[in-house]
């Protein structure tokens, strides 16, 4: 092996010794492994025994007579609630099988328990992470365990006479119901020490070092294609989980996506989220999603919308991951829609049937489709390809489908997970191989962000959701994609 690999007769003592040593090492390893397995099994057994003992003790404590379920099985009997309540089984039921208890396996549902909030004094504040429209977020350490967490203070307006904000309550409830590796974990809710008046409410969340927004701002080079895929896949599987649980996030953007130093992405900030049944109820608030990530149907005032609005935001985030710049930075609703039409082309009655019936589409003046051919209205795919020349064909098709103006044409999160883009080379990078970044949240106060905030629920003036698009200035609307266009405007957008 050492230098004389070819000599077949070199069965020297040295070799034999080496071989023996190797064999010994191997055996040693094997032995250790077996030992480990044995220990693990033992521990497991012990644990089970302890559990069984505990269960037995519990049962005894509550003075129950029967002890017929085997020790290894789950403590499957009805939980004893108080000493004095031994229910007599109804005679009708008793007449049927009597020995079925040991044969049938019943599912037990574990719903947890309820109890009072703990005090915020169980945590030691380390530093502020963020203070802004969302309220106050700080890094803190749980005194008992030393674990670092993020404390988010629930914003309460003392003048608001409608009690605790429904958005905050929804956020807590939704996060409590969620359990997925790509969704930030809510550990508990704690309150200020003075419990006679509940004013200070803090949500305790797992702490992640970064948010995607500040990483994108600071990185000198954009993410590699493989890294973009990893991030998108994680985002998408989190969203697939949410949507399959009837939750709409309604405020997806890069600053709400957290990243830890192990390359794990988690969706955070559920202040706008809510349960939405399928089919969606007829009237939902349109004032959701930060402007730059807001889907066109929301801008056009649709009151009935579904998970597609989150997928639009995913498209915007995809674009942002590629360029490090938010994709559609509109100054206001009108400007945002202009930018959308610049990037994606104009909607037609074919590509988006029924969009003209949306409330705000009335003030929109678009060319009639009869006069313009497909030639004058390039497809979204073509426009996207022009904007992202380095993206592969599969990538372009995915991005273009996410940014379909017609919500029905956007892929669902589950469909997106199966997209060819993720199977092509370069393959998504393994999370463990992800580069790390210096954490701002861990050490210092953040810079002020220039991202616009999620719309406020009781924002004055725009409550009706009516936006007047009559001033939509579309002089250069096709600047990017219409070089080939020679016939001049096949359409005109008039001011009214």
């Amino acid at each position: 092996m050492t230098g004389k690999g070819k000599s077949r007769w070199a069965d020297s003592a040295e070799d034999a010794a080496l071989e023996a040593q190797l064999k010994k090492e191997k055996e040693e390893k094997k032995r250790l492994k077996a030992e480990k397995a044995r220990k693990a099994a033992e521990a497991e057994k012990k644990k089970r025994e302890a559990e069984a003992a505990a269960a037995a003790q519990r049962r005894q404590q509550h003075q129950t007579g029967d002890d017929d379920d085997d020790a290894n099985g789950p403590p499957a009997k009805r939980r004893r609630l108080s000493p004095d309540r031994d229910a007599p089984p109804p005679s009708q039921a008793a007449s049927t099988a009597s020995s079925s208890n040991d044969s049938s396996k019943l599912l037990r549902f574990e719903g947890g328990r309820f109890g009072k909030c703990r005090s915020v004094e169980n945590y030691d504040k380390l530093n502020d992470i963020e203070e802004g429209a969302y309220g106050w977020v700080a890094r803190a350490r749980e005194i008992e365990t030393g674990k670092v967490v993020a404390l988010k203070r629930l914003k309460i307006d003392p003048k608001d006479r409608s009690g605790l904000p429904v958005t905050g309550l929804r956020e807590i409830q939704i996060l409590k119901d969620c359990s997925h590796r790509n969704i930030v974990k809510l550990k508990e809710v704690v309150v200020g020490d003075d419990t006679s008046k509940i004013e200070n409410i803090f949500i305790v969340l797992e702490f992640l070092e970064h948010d995607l927004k500040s990483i994108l701002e600071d990185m000198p080079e954009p993410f590699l294609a493989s890294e973009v895929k990893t991030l998108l896949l994680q985002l998408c599987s989190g969203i697939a989980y949410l949507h399959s649980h009837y939750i709409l996030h309604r405020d997806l953007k890069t600053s709400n996506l957290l990243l830890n130093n192990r390359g794990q992405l988690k969706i955070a900030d559920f202040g706008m989220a809510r349960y939405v049944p399928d089919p969606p109820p007829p009237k939902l608030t349109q004032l959701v999603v930060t402007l730059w990530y807001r889907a066109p149907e929301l801008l056009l005032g649709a009151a009935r919308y579904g998970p597609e609005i989150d997928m639009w935001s995913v498209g915007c985030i995809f674009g942002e991951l590629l360029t490090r710049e938010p994709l559609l930075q509109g100054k206001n609703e009108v400007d945002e829609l202009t930018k959308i039409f610049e990037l994606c082309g104009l909607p037609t009655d074919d590509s988006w049937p029924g969009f003209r019936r949306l409330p705000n589409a009335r003030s929109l003046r678009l060319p009639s489709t009869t006069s313009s051919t497909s030639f004058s209205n390039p497809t979204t795919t073509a426009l996207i390809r022009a904007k992202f020349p380095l993206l592969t064909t599969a990538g372009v098709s995915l991005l273009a489908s996410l940014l379909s103006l017609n919500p029905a044409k956007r892929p669902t999160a589950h469909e997106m997970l199966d997209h060819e883009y993720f199977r092509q080379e370069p393959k998504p990078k393994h999370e463990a191989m992800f580069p790390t970044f210096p954490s701002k949240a861990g050490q210092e106060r953040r810079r002020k962000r220039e991202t616009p905030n999620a719309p406020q629920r009781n924002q004055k003036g725009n409550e009706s959701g009516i936006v007047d698009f009559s001033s939509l200035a579309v002089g250069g609307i096709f600047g990017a994609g219409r070089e080939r266009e020679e016939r001049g405007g096949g359409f005109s957008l008039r001011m009214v």
Partner: protein
Amino acid sequence: MSHMVNPLATPDQLYQRRSFSALPTELQDAIFFSTQCLTQAAGLLLQLPQSVTAQANVIIARYWLEEPMMSHEFSDISAASVYLTAKLSPYPRSPRDLALVYNYLLSPSSTFFQPLASASGDSPPPPPTNIPNDYYLPEHIYNSFHTRMLDCESRILYALSFNTHVSLPHPLAITYLQALDFLNTSKSTVSKRTLAYLNTALLSPQMLYLTSQPNALAVAAIYNAAKDVGAKMPECEWWEVFDVDREELGFLVVGMRSVDGWGRKMREDVERIKAETESGKRGGMIRRRDVEGELRRRGLSVGNGYAKGAGGTGAGSEEPVDMEAEMARRMDEKMAEIEGSAS
């Protein structure tokens, strides 16, 4: 999955309520029953779907395992839980709606807990005449109600760690009935009876919703309904298909059936307690001061009761605030009386 399970009460929580609380058990049961009935009545007047009102019922039951019953007025806790569950549902109701409804339900004109014919044979008193002045809501009464309600709302949320999740067995019961082909009887008869059992179980001081998961409640209600309408159930142990064992089913079947008789007894208790108050009127919702009066008559000290109740849950520091709130409440009531008589 989370849509099918509820957090359940621990044996400790249940035991503590029975043993450490200052109030005698039968008084606690009477208060529990009346408050749950009041909540249902308010839900009807507020035109809330039962899915919302029933959640409020469960929230109240959970809350009272965490905090002593006497620390707030019962009707305020009821109002706060309805307000809270409605707010989180697609059918929010304004504080003023709640104030109007509760003001009416607690007024002498309301038919809520109208006295029943008593066992001694005397006919029940005629329904109260409707005097709109009884339930006129002046602004200051509204304001103090509003403040108390918000106070109770945050109190409830604190006591439950902000976990407002309630899964109801009603939709499961219908699904199970469909799976059982409605036991070959009239769909509407057996479904209605099943839902009636589930709704009645909300009122049970045994707190069935806190001790059993929705699937077990649904199966027990179906079992009872099938017995009542004389439907033929499968021969086998069909409840095991729905992951309920015979013992739990038996317990729930008995528990659900007993609510009827139990409820009647508790209504009589409430009537008796109400009849011994200064007003001497037999009907209506039981109030904190009625309970205090009853305790005094029984020779149990109220102050002692408070301390014990509060100490039992480790919240002794709240005493002075409660006193203050109590004072404010008394003053409000006094004012209301003056206002009422002046107008």
